[in-house]
């Protein structure tokens, strides 16, 4: 594992807190770490270049903005077709996550997609569409019944 300096960790900890809604948010975060705004911005850009930061932005409460039907769909994909099927599924705007995962005994599903839609009918139709486009017919739809927790990870706090 790559070593992160104490200052790297301080910067990451500052960035993972709620982003200040004010005119100069980076200046506020920089002050918490004891850096100038200029140095802090440079370090943030470096983290983006190194792809350690995926995105700076907002996550909406998707139910509140109208996406009320959310399903995890687990697909059984022949290993040699994973990349092609992964590409087909990822291209769909309703798919937020698409991961290849290890299987378990009595559980052959190896590709996982999260699908978001306004209604259950729409979500089912998207899954049928994905199934047809990818040529994968063995799958399980796991609709969300209740969200118990959804939070951002706090890194380097253990």
């Amino acid at each position, binding site marked *: 594992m790559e070593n992160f300096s104490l200052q790297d960790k301080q910067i990451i900890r500052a960035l993972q807190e709620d982003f200040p809604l004010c005119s100069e948010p980076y200046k506020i975060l920089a002050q918490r770490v004891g850096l100038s705004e200029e140095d802090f911005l440079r370090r943030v850009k470096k983290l983006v270049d190194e792809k350690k930061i995926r995105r700076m932005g907002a996550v909406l409460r998707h139910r509140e903005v109208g996406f009320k039907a959310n399903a995890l769909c687990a697909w059984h994909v022949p290993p040699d077709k994973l990349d092609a099927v992964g590409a087909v599924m990822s291209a769909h705007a309703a798919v937020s996550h698409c991961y290849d995962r290890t299987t378990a005994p009595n559980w052959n599903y190896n590709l996982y997609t999260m699908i978001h839609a306004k209604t259950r009918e729409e979500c089912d139709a998207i899954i049928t569409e994905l199934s047809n486009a990818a040529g994968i017919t063995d799958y399980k739809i796991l609709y969300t019944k209740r*969200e*118990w927790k959804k939070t951002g990870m706090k890194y380097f706090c253990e």
Partner: protein
Amino acid sequence: MTELSDFDKALLNLLQGDIPICSHPFAKMARTLGTDEGTVLNRLRELKAAGYLRRIGTFFDSHRLGYRGTLVALKVAPSAVNSVAQAINRYPGATHNYEREGLYNLWFTLLTPDVECESKILAEIRALGGVEDMLKLKANKKYKVNVQFNLQ
């Protein structure tokens, strides 16, 4: 909850993308939207207070920060779902925890700094009353991670 106006939708679509990395990011966003910084900041505070925004901030690539991630599916006796879900929620590395339809009825993601930590937590959860089976579904390859909703 108030209806989102066309301006709100444009603002939220922009905010879900990339917040500019510069001294006055909201002024830059305001220029893109044809308005001023004060209008953007005031409306964002209101939308946040109204519960539309889960989080504004930085999303890291957990793997590149040295963390390992796994999806875990549990088969839990219906009477124990609440207590097991709450026990899982207490682990900081359990970032997503959902009750789902089907035989495996509780699904959570776990991020840990090393394999020892992961094994310890999974053993503790497997031993909880009512947990009948556990599937560990480690991520091999991520084809897409993009939680953005296009508001129209």
